[in-house]
């Protein structure tokens, strides 16, 4: 198996990186390009940009932001926010994204996953699932966690992969922004039903959180504020993961960047 990936996430609103608690109370932080370059130099394995207000406002993620980041970035870039169809996906790929994440639109019309996979290949299609705990399992929610859908998260993950998703970005809305660790039960449950890579998202703060996500079956761990606020650098986190026996991509030279 490959290395466990560490993925900083840039939640972008109007060209600025923001980070809220439980998807609400957005705070302005920094310019995406500045952070993208810093994380690349620190040994990030991939970068995710989510345009957090795109779906809510019914528009596509800002092409200018994607293009500006792609200009300086030479690691894989996933972009999500407002992707409603194949044309939107092509526009983001043309702007420099390597993969597109689709969430709200896929819940509304799951066949978008088949069309995307046929057009750009499943390796470029990421299904973003926002899940919230409920009696006996997890429910899919959309619109930044504001709207329940009634869908069971495990059934949706399985269906999404059957339809064409090549990867799942799995966010626990309960854990997101709390710093209380990933929802490892959710990760383990989804791992049981799909074989594509799973990116753990929501609540990861300490190195132990990432270790537990790896043990629960995640292929990657995504986090935002711990990196933005410089509680840890990407290379420090990866060095400590390696000490726990988690296989990570690691180069000594990165420590000079810390």
């Amino acid at each position, binding site marked *: *198996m*490959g*290395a466990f*990936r560490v993925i900083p996430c840039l939640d972008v609103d109007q060209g600025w990186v923001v980070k809220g608690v439980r998807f609400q109370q957005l705070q302005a932080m920094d310019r995406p390009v500045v952070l993208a370059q810093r994380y*690349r*130099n620190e*040994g990030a*394995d991939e970068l995710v940009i989510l345009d957090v207000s795109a779906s809510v406002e019914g528009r596509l993620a800002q092409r200018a932001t994607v293009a500006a980041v*792609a*200009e300086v970035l*030479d*690691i*894989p870039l996933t972009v999500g926010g407002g992707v409603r169809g194949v044309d939107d996906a092509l526009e983001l*790929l043309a702007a*420099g994204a*390597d993969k597109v994440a689709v969430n709200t639109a896929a819940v509304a019309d799951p066949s978008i996953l088949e069309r995307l996979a046929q057009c750009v*290949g*499943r*390796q470029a299609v990421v299904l973003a699932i926002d899940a919230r705990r409920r009696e006996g399992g997890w429910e899919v929610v959309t619109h930044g966690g504001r709207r329940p859908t009634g869908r069971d998260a495990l059934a949706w993950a399985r269906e999404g992969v059957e339809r064409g998703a*090549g*990867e799942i970005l799995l966010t626990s809305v309960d854990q997101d922004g709390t710093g209380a660790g990933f929802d490892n039960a959710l990760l383990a449950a989804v791992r049981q039903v799909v*074989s594509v*890579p799973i990116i753990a998202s929501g609540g990861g703060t300490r190195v132990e959180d990432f270790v537990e996500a790896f043990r629960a079956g995640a*292929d990657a761990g995504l986090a935002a504020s711990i990196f933005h606020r410089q509680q840890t650098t990407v290379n420090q986190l990866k060095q400590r993961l390696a000490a726990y026996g988690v296989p990570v*991509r*690691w*180069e000594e*030279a*990165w420590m000079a960047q810390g």
Partner: protein
Amino acid sequence: MTVTVVDLQVGNIPNVVRAFTRLGCQVRVTAQPEEVRASRVLVLPGVGAAPAAVASLARDGLGGAVQEAVGAGAWLLGICLGHQLLFEELWEFGRHRGLGLLAGVVAPLPEGVRSPHMGWAKIHALRADFASLHGRWFYFVHSFVALPQVTDLVAVADHDGHEICAVVRRQRVIGVQFHPEKSGPEGEAFLREFCEMVA
């Protein structure tokens, strides 16, 4: 130095162009056979399905121009699908004829390993052609893999317990299954070494 990127209209061109531009190269993107024929350093990128790329090579004699340039002493770097096109045949949705610059075929990843192979893998160099390769991590995205002649094999990568072809070279023809333009500082170091080699 001028690098000519052969445009097969199968994606990924801007990232490759940016990577060489960052290294100070002049980059020309072309689908014109006469420009390809006149080039000293060629890069053949590619993402996606083999049939479309093979069709692009056949169109307007672009593949023939690449073969002629190499015959006349040009350097050629194939990346991912571009690397697979260097071989004789690609077994993907049928059998397709490649450029035949390297002996061997391209086949699906072995039974029982994860496909597509997406992610970072560590390189084990079998030869010392490139100092920037051994023990470093590079980014892969592919479902098919080259089965080269062993004398052309420069480096392998570990994927799901299998050693897969990562880098090949025969004289001035070099192929890499990974994406150096997406492999961060290590990818940049590899491309720099390539540029120094061909300068």
